[in-house]
């Protein structure tokens, strides 16, 4: 054991042989204390947002530390169990309503201890995905979805997959960067159905030639 004493260990810098100091549980403990203190003073209901659920914890590792297959299975199965659908049973709504939502990135932000009020939470899509080929003001953190419906069709299976992917992306891609928009209560099932229609509906700008 190389790192019996503190100072030689630090002198070795950040070498892998020193991975034992400070050990991971202690790092987590002290970091969690810092996080709690950093948000102290905010209303409890807002502070709760910073508390991780079990899946967020599993998904918080550096990219170099892959999930084991059991862990990945745990994340996907809890995501699948989280699915909720619109009471109408219709998983694809109105693409024009979806169009309003996909480029709206506001909602649930906190300033000076209060939630910034908006009419409805936006679906944030174009922050990360290209959708309408004419819209160039789009991000690329996620894959481009231009021509999505033209490419994949609009079968019930495609619609269900698209709905579930938006509701809780981790059901298909455990620990994906994509937020679990439905599961986290950020979008309602009805809103998600409208968002689904936007890439899937063949009349939508997403599928124009």
């Amino acid at each position, binding site marked *: 054991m190389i790192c019996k004493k*503190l100072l030689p260990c*630090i*002198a070795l*810098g*950040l070498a892998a042989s020193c991975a034992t*100091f*400070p050990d991971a549980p202690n*790092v*987590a403990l*002290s*970091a969690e*204390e*810092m*996080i709690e*203190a*950093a*948000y*102290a*003073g*905010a209303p409890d209901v*807002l*502070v709760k*947002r*910073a*508390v*991780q659920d079990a899946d*967020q914890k599993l*998904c*918080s*590792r*550096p*990219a170099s530390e892959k999930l084991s297959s059991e862990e990945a299975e745990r994340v996907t199965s809890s995501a699948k169990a989280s699915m909720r659908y619109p009471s109408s049973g219709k998983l694809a709504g109105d693409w024009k309503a979806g169009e309003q939502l996909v480029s709206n990135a506001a909602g*649930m*932000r*906190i*300033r*000076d*201890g209060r939630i910034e009020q908006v009419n409805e939470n936006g679906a*944030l899509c*174009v*922050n*990360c995905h290209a959708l309408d080929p004419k819209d*160039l*003001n*789009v*991000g*690329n*953190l996620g894959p481009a979805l231009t021509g999505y419906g033209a490419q994949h069709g609009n079968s019930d299976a495609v619609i269900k997959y698209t709905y579930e992917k938006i509701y809780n992306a981790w059901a298909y891609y455990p620990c994906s*960067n994509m*937020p*679990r928009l439905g599961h*986290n*209560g*950020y979008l309602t099932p009805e809103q998600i159905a409208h968002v689904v229609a936007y890439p899937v509906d063949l009349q939508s700008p997403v599928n124009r030639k």
Partner: protein
Amino acid sequence: MTCMIDLQGFTREDIIRDRFGSLDKDSDMEALVSFIGSKSNGMRMNVPMRHAKEYERYKAGEYIFHRRAGPLDFSCATCHSEEGKRIRLQELPNMTDPKQVQIVISTGWPAYRGTQATVRTMQHRLYDCNWQMRLPDLGYASDMSVALTSYLNYRANGGVIQLPGVRR
């Protein structure tokens, strides 16, 4: 801030009230951080990592950088760990790339931010990311913010300092 409070007689509340300027009123703290930062211009970033507490803070910063939380499941790494990524047209620095960390830290903050029409500090940059992540207001100079800054600054060692920067 420790010197300002212990030796000069400022209160923590006064400092925090004045932490970020507005269009109506500049912030003394933003001015002070810019002045002090610019005094290292031309030198290389050289953050020490000799004391156990420094290393503990660095490791906590690494943990926080990857920690996903909030209604959008974001961590710092969600947006800042891949090459060539953007939110809409805004390019995102990849903070896992040593060269980019050097540029962001040694020539980035404090910076004049065009969208804010004033000079902002790293404390404000972290506060603003935290706001986008839908988390509660990040405490000014909180240990959490210092841990994240330690993690980033140490990894920027070797970068040539040129401050203040200019950012969107």
